[in-house]
């Protein structure tokens, strides 16, 4: 009992430390991007990797007592779900840092790290929550539906991150000031290609997730649509991603407008996603 309390406290302390480090790293990334200052770059690396250590350690402390057999529990608890989401973003950042994309790490970090900090902060009040995902429908397709839908949302997040960087660089170039602030950024066209790719991935993954969801509903309820809040949110999210995909594919507007639309639609889809999955307790595979 005492050991459990100590581990719980350690989990909270480590998680708060991780949030602090990620928050500082996010500020350093923005300063490094803005001023092209090497000191901020060094601080960014330091706080990011210290934050990663705290973050991973907090997960180990939380789930170690359950053993590997219950590892699936991480994804089923509401905090564990968000933990995995952040872990995916952290792994993505580490990959970009160490891969051939390394020279573009700072602008990506300047956008992704604030997201990591915000998601972690949102998950902090849920750290001791007992809410667990209630599948309600037993079907092997369910995990695939969740994974595809979640991956689609994450790629949409990347597309919106790319759009933010695009607008920043576009703004600096239009202001006609020194190149110092844009030194570590890739070219406008490169950012645009990345954003287009991420939007395309988001569209395909979310579409697969949606189709799997329809199949699940059909198998279990013999209908294609239950008019539940969760389904409506899913369709709206898909519609947002589809709009972005269509705008880019057909080049229906200028790159700046498309970037703005991407960000706005991501905010709409992201907010609905968070409300539907983490705050509402109704609907299948919700956290109850």
């Amino acid at each position, binding site marked *: 009992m005492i050991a459990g309390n100590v581990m719980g406290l350690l989990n909270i302390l480590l998680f708060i430390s991780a949030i602090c480090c990620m928050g500082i790293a996010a500020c350093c990334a923005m300063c490094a991007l803005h001023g*092209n200052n*090497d000191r901020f770059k060094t601080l960014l690396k330091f706080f990011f990797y210290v934050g990663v250590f705290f973050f991973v350690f907090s997960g180990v402390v939380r789930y170690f007592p359950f053993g590997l057999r219950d590892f699936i529990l991480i994804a089923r608890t509401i905090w564990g779900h968000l933990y995995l989401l952040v872990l995916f973003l952290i792994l993505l950042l580490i990959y970009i840092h160490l891969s051939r994309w390394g020279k573009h790490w700072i602008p990506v970090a300047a956008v992704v790290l604030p997201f990591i900090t915000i998601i972690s902060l949102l998950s902090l009040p849920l750290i001791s929550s007992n809410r667990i995902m209630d599948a309600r429908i037993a079907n092997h397709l369910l995990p695939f539906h969740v994974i595809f839908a979640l991956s689609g949302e994450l790629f949409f997040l990347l597309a919106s991150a790319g759009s933010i960087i695009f607008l920043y*660089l576009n703004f600096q*170039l*239009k202001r*006609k*000031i*020194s*190149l*110092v602030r*844009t*030194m570590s*950024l890739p*070219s*406008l*066209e*490169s950012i*645009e*290609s990345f954003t287009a790719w991420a939007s395309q991935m988001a569209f395909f993954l979310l579409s697969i997730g949606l189709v799997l969801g329809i199949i699940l509903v059909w198998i279990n309820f013999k209908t294609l649509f239950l008019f539940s809040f969760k389904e409506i949110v899913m369709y709206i999210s898909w519609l947002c991603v589809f709009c972005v995909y269509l705008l880019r594919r057909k*080049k229906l*507007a*200028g*790159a*700046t*407008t*498309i970037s703005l639309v991407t960000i706005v639609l991501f905010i709409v889809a992201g907010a609905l996603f968070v409300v539907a999955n983490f705050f509402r307790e109704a609907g299948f595979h919700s956290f109850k």
Partner: protein
Amino acid sequence: MKGIIEPIREVVLVGLSHKTAPVEMRERFALEGDARLRFIKQALIAGVEEVVYVATCNRVEAYAASRYPERAVKILLELFEEVSSIPQSDAEKFVFRKYSKEAVSHLFEVASSLDSMVVGENEILGQLKECYSNAVKAKTTGPVLNKLFHHAFRTAKRVRSETAISRNPLSVAFIAVELARKIFEDITKERALIIGAGEMGELILRYLVKAGVHHIVIANRSIANAESLAREVYPDARVVPLVEAAAESAMADILISSVASRDFVLTEKNVREIMKFRKGKPLFIIDIAVPRTIDPNISHIEDVFLYDIDDLKSISEENRKVREREVNIAMEIIEEDVKEFLLWQRGLAVVPAINFIQKKFEEIRKKELARYRRKKLKHLAQKDFKAVEELTLQIMTKTLHNPIAHLKEIAKGMRGHGERTIEEAVHMIMEMFKDEGYEK
């Protein structure tokens, strides 16, 4: 004990730069090809132990390393007087001399481009390397100048990588190309249209060609002038008359206008039409003509980036300020590296003493071994005697390790000994090993 504590070779510098002398004066001191070689060889003959002659468009300098710094400076001044035919008394106010730390620091600043007319320029390091390489080939360098120049190159590399001193371009033409690189994913695939064959347009064209742009169209009133420019800069460029410029601009990604015209070559309406067909692909326009020939209102159009000559100049000015701010960080790096070099140089003072001690011990060891081999160890087999030899060598090396390490640290001032005590300390150790009676 004479020759054990030798004075170290001090670094000295005699020269003149854009900061101290006008170009008419600098060119009198500047030497080319074989004359440079003769200069350094003569310095060596006259008694300077090591010398390197450095000449760039902004400076003429001679670096030397000598145990007699004043004499070395005198020799270099006399040689400069000879080559320039300007009496020393007249050249006095233009020529600077620097000794030891100041000279080392100066070279590090020169290599790091802090002493250049355009702070952060990249050419100086290459010029310096060439001058040093000439001296190495002529065998006029030695341990001190070799170490000094290599250290200077390393410092320059550190300054370039750890500060933003040379990251931001200052040349207007280069800025234009850098901006194009920030807009397009692969500049080599883009189409460039040059309207007018003006001087600045030509310069930007040269940079674009250097950057790998190969779809180039030159539009000019005089076809002959445009063809001449194409021949000179990029023979594969297509030449069209000025009246076709508007039509060609529909295909261009990079547009540079330097033509003299009272009317706009490109209006807002033209560009809006063009952008409809570009489907979000950016258009980069540089208007360096005065008066401007591109309607300034087009800069409000989405995905169009218009820069005029003032915009480019203000970026250049801002970059210059950034470079100046970086100078302080660069100076900290230089100070650190100068200290490191001077410590190494001070360590040289004890090298003869260390050699003397090692030699003396080796003599004793060999003499004693030979004596024992003749008498007490004559029964030993060759293999066993070799083991004894190895043992004595090990004992000697281990016995000497501490005093030698101590000596090196004293020389570097790491143990708090002042410069005046080095000699005393070395003498003290020498006295320890001195044995007048041994030779008998």
